[in-house]
């Protein structure tokens, strides 16, 4: 077996050298497509992080004034609980809000340091039977002395989801198109490699080399291109994170958003590698199909 691996390795290296420019184009295309695919996966992660489980359970946040008396708060509580539109309501104290904040921004210790439980408002978190009824609730609670602001969490969330959804779909569509183009280019390099070695192939068939023995060097050549493209894409995602996301964490304006981190990029690694190898394998086999019939 050792000799065979040596043979396959030599053949693959020689073939990649021979078609330098086309190989470069194929690897670049795989890189771009998988970079976009990885990017869209991270956008998805980012949305999940920002939306969070909690935000989807709560439709209305009623923030309380710090000066509100215990009596005012109890009146308000009874009023909210009594509404037929309300499915569920719970009170979040300043301390609970702080705990949640700390948990949410555990990756940004600088931010946590600057916030105390006292600076966060207490609130009622309300879930409605019908989320569309926000305006009704809002109007009915107007004028309550304990209330600072009422926020329709769902509207904020929906805006975010709409924007990121378009971004994600766009990136995935471009990624899919690029991936098909990458497959075409890999197929082309493999086809050229087969063509360049048609004399060898003819002799190999004549002396009884099996089809798989003939195919494997070309298949490896295609797969190496897919793997290299995927590797560069993963590297690119890390570079993006270091260059653009990490600086945002320390900025006051964006720092309070939980950004995706290394663990989320690692999560995309197997997906990108499998996608790269898969497209390369399919493209290589497809390109060889016609040339290597017995």
């Amino acid at each position, binding site marked *: 077996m050792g000799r065979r691996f040596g043979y396959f390795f030599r053949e693959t290296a020689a073939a990649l050298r021979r078609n330098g420019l086309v190989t470069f184009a194929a690897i670049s295309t795989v890189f771009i497509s998988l970079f976009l695919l990885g990017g869209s996966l991270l956008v998805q992660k980012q949305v999940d992080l920002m939306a969070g489980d909690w935000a989807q359970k709560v439709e209305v946040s009623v923030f309380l004034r710090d000066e509100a008396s215990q009596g005012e708060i109890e009146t308000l509580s009874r009023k909210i609980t009594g509404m037929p539109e309300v499915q569920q309501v719970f009170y979040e104290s300043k301390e609970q809000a702080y705990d949640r904040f700390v948990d949410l921004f555990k990756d940004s210790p600088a931010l946590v340091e600057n916030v105390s439980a006292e600076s966060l408002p207490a609130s009622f978190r309300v879930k409605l039977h019908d989320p569309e009824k926000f305006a009704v609730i809002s109007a009915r609670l107007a004028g309550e002395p304990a209330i600072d602001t009422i926020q329709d969490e769902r509207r904020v969330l929906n805006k975010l989801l709409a924007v990121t959804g378009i971004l994600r779909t766009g990136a995935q569509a471009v990624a899919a198109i690029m991936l098909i183009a990458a497959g075409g280019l890999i197929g082309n390099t493999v086809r050229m490699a087969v063509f360049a070695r048609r004399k060898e192939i003819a*002799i190999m068939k004549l*002396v*009884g080399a*099996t089809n798989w023995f003939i195919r494997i060097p070309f298949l490896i050549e295609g797969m190496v291109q897919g793997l290299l493209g995927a590797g560069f894409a993963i590297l690119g995602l890390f570079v993006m994170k270091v260059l653009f996301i990490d600086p945002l964490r320390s900025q006051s304006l964006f720092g309070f958003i939980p950004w995706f981190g290394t663990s989320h990029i690692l999560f995309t690694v197997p997906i990108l590698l499998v996608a790269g190898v898969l497209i390369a394998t399919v493209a290589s086999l497809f390109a060889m199909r016609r040339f290597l019939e017995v």
Partner: protein
Amino acid sequence: MIKTESVTKTYKDTVTALEDVSVEVEKGEFVFIVGPSGSGKSTFIRLLLKEEEPTRGAIYVAGKNINTLSSWKVPYLRRNIGTIFQDFKLLPDKTVFENVAFALEVIGKPKHVIQKRVPEILTLVGLGGKLENYPDELSGGEQQRVSIARAFVNRPLILLADEPTGNLDPSTSVEIMKLLDRINRTGTTVIMATHDNAIVDAMRRRVIELEDGSVVRDQARGVYGYGT
């Protein structure tokens, strides 16, 4: 060793390359297939290698019906058949040694077998001193010897030769024929397509003559043509 039963091969339903060819070749025989260009000699050889399928009829090689042989078994059929051609089909960027070794390498023979057997066979064909030369440094006769070494290095049961002397001058051709004769004496069945009448006449072996795809003569100790 080889048997064809009423083999017919037509291309695109109109061109008939072989028609109703039934021949039987015993183990160890030396057979010439003669006839003018386009008489079907090369088609006959391609059919034996299963590079093409017969339109009708059955072909048996080493006792097996190769019509029904599944495609993944074809390489194993070919390992039993050595093939040489008019144009040698050597790889120009490989040395003599590498050209012969290639045939063993691609069927997965271990390195120590290759290191032992390739010099042996090249010495046998008289090229023991030219292992490291490239094909373009050799004469035509020497190149054909390399291709014979490559065809024979795996000790096939059958050697198919398609116009092996077609590119060689008469005296070189004689040397190549001596080599094929020696290979035949080791028990290898040799089938040689040719239209070199001097060689056929000199060898006095079985001659099968094709004309427009049909067998017009099958003679035990034949010459190239009638009355010559």
